[in-house]
């Protein structure tokens, strides 16, 4: 067992709101410099740049989980992460089946598709800043059916955060954890949202620019780093656990 530092919420230049400098090799270099063991690639409603980041990570020792930040019909952001690229793309297909609108780059920003050499392959035409027609529970169910993990991104934030936006934890929503906003303390959060007591709290950077990568991370105590082990750690199973860096508290 050891502690693996993971920042599982990182955007690339595919997200219209992200810095164009968020290209695969830049992300990997920055993550390695920050001493991270793993990152999650989570662009809005697309996993299209995840393969390039995975290829850029070869030989770096860094594990790259492919995923995306899905905007549900209620306009809540769900961070979905997968152990296999095929699962991430199956999720993308599901999400984009009901993702209306075309991007207007001059208004929302560029959506750049790149390879690991930083060649521009094209521009994503869909409105990734928009919301899918699937509900929260449909999104979370599909993530689980595809073997992934589903977290409420920046859960306490009013803009697109599950609790901040809806004001409550929907009953029966089978989330794997809640990501806190950077400035919220765990104690403060637990006091404000007692109904979330069963859910693990996580911290990731939600990086939109290179210098933000690793500004928040979560430690996972595991024998080896893969998605199934992350799932066990979130449940505190078999001696595994998580450690949010700000609070330094083990969950067992």
């Amino acid at each position, binding site marked *: 067992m050891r502690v693996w530092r993971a920042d599982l919420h990182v955007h690339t230049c595919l997200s219209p*709101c992200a810095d164009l400098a968020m290209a695969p090799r830049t992300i990997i270099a920055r993550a390695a410099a920050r001493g991270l063991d793993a990152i999650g690639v989570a662009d809005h409603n697309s996993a299209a740049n995840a393969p390039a980041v995975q290829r850029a990570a070869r030989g770096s020792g860094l594990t790259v989980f492919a995923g995306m930040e899905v905007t549900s*019909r*209620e*306009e809540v952001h769900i961070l979905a992460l997968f152990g296999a690229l095929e699962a991430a793309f199956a999720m993308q297909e599901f999400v984009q089946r009901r993702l*209306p*609108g075309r991007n*207007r780059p001059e*208004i*929302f920003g560029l959506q750049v598709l790149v390879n690991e050499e930083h060649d521009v392959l094209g521009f994503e035409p869909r409105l990734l*800043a*928009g*919301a899918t027609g699937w509900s929260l529970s449909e999104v979370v169910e599909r993530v689980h059916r595809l073997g992934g993990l589903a977290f409420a991104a920046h859960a306490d934030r*009013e*803009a*697109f955060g599950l609790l901040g936006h809806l004001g409550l934890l929907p009953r029966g929503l089978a989330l794997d954890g809640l990501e806190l906003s950077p400035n919220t303390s765990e104690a403060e959060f637990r006091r404000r949202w007692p109904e979330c007591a069963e859910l693990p709290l996580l911290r990731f950077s939600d990086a939109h620019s290179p210098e933000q990568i690793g500004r928040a991370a979560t430690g996972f105590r595991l024998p080896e780093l893969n998605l199934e082990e992350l799932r066990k750690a979130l449940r505190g199973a078999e001696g595994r656990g998580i450690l949010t860096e700000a609070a330094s508290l083990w969950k067992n």
Partner: protein
Amino acid sequence: MTLRALAETLGLEVLSAWDLDREVTGAYVADLLSDVLAHAAPGSLWITLQTHANVAAVAALKELSVLLANGRRPDPDMLERAREHKVTVLATGLPAFEIAGRLYAAGLRGGN
């Protein structure tokens, strides 16, 4: 009625001013961006509680002016985006229902 006339009549605060002499053709109340994208008519005044940057982007896309209700203050990056895209942003301390009622009484109707 122009935005300027409405602002004066109803005491709306002007946070970002671009086209105050434009005729307002209607109003729309919603807090879901997807709903606004799908249903708000161009030229309308959009009454909302949302205060983040994508509000300005959606308003620019749909050619709307924004009215923040219930004492809401815009996030700094929302105002930045509003200025970048020349979106007028107004604010009122009144709740959405109240301000919608007063706009209706002033002669404004739903989108065309």
